[in-house]
């Protein structure tokens, strides 16, 4: 069973329906005891980093998620949920994240190296480039996925970069270290590849459970 962390921000409905289409049982909850029973967590998120961290801290969910991740429970952050896994973000001033992954979220410059301006948010379908093998990308081919974001992660470790997209520079798209994963795009809105990636995460969760 997957536990979708409900802290008041995020497109929970679409994520939960995607799991239903995959035939994966889930709960949506803000209750730590309930979420502790889940074999893997999904941390969704739409909105601002500061507001999200504030809610996670107020509810004690931030320390719960960190604790669960450190105990080896699989965690997948989606969109803002992925950025929350990192050390900090520059959105609305510098704010501390969950710190499960090394790196920080910064705003797209909006101006390329030659001084030409480009559009922010990075919105639409962009192609993934796979960097190294991961249970998340196993058996899948590089295709387009749907992005909507104005901040992107930088300073991540090379080993944690599973896939990226090119938007006036390398944009980390799938990240992961041990049992902690993130997707900058919306897998639940990204057609077959998105569903494939989400399916791989749920299979990973299942396999981890069997190994226990």
């Amino acid at each position, binding site marked *: 069973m997957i536990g979708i962390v409900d802290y008041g921000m995020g*497109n*929970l*409905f*679409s994520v939960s*329906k*995607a799991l*239903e*289409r995959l035939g994966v049982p889930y709960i949506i909850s803000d209750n730590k005891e309930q979420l502790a029973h889940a074999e893997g967590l999904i941390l969704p998120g*739409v*909105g*601002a980093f500061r507001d999200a961290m504030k809610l996670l801290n107020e509810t004690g969910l931030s320390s719960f998620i960190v604790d669960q991740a450190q105990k080896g429970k699989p965690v997948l952050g989606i969109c803002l949920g992925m950025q929350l896994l990192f050390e900090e973000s520059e959105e609305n001033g510098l704010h501390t994240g969950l710190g499960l992954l090394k790196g920080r979220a910064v705003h797209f410059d*909006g101006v390329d190296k030659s001084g030409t*301006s480009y*559009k*922010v*948010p*990075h*919105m*639409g*379908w*962009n*192609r993934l480039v796979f960097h190294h093998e991961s249970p998340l990308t196993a058996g899948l081919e590089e295709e*387009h996925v*749907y*992005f*909507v*974001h*104005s901040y992107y992660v930088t300073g991540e470790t090379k080993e944690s970069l599973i896939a990226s997209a*090119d*938007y006036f520079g390398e944009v980390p798209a799938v990240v992961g270290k041990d049992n902690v994963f993130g997707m900058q795009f*919306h897998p*639940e*809105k*990204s*057609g*077959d590849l*998105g*569903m494939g990636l989400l399916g791989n995460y749920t299979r990973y969760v299942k396999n981890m459970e069997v190994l226990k």
Partner: protein
Amino acid sequence: MLTKRIIPCLDVKEGRVVKGIQFLELRDAGDPVELARAYDEQGADELVFLDISASHEGRETMVDVVQDVASELAIPFTVGGGIKTIEDMKRLLRAGADKVSLNTSALLDPHLIKAGADYFGSQCIVVAIDAKWDETIGTWRVYTHGGRNPLDKEAVAWAKEAVDLGAGEILLTSMDSDGEKHGFNVDLTKAVSEAVTVPVIASGGAGCSEDFTEIFTEGKADAALAASIFHYEETSIAEVKAHLKEEGVNVR
């Protein structure tokens, strides 16, 4: 590289898609989910649902439509029409819409854009602009209420203001081009796209595949929206995309 988006627009009234959809293979051309699926399979990059219900009940039904589409399809979509409050936005976004589109309500109360962007993030807030060339002022004028009422507002300036308030995308309809099928309005789209920092969806005037190439290359559009040419199968999304690829435009 980010691809250019092709977006079919569906008018929904009291929960049913209206305005001549002529897909022969559909069992029920009025079913929003069935149409959304058909467009998804053809390669649509996103969908826009415009709620043209006149009644309160009709608007309530739209929330069900949004839930049904989000339940069955992995495709991003925007809902517009009659959204007046944060509460309206909340209902639609919670039901699985990715973005909401504001038009008249944002013009009557521009602060609604900021309130929405602060609450949900700019990426959820699309501002739709209906614009028409006005010889007397030598530029494009903004209209409200589905193009019925002219405002003392200039389209490029309004687009910039909307973005400053927090709009994450502009859906720009040329009233001069709409329904004519002689191509999108390149001048208007280019003027707005170069004036704002967010993506611009061009709308109004699509008649053939070449029109899409033109609006992406010369018009600097980030996405292009069309209704009737897709609904009446005058061309298909696949055909448009094949043409764009040939012309070197990056599409999915």
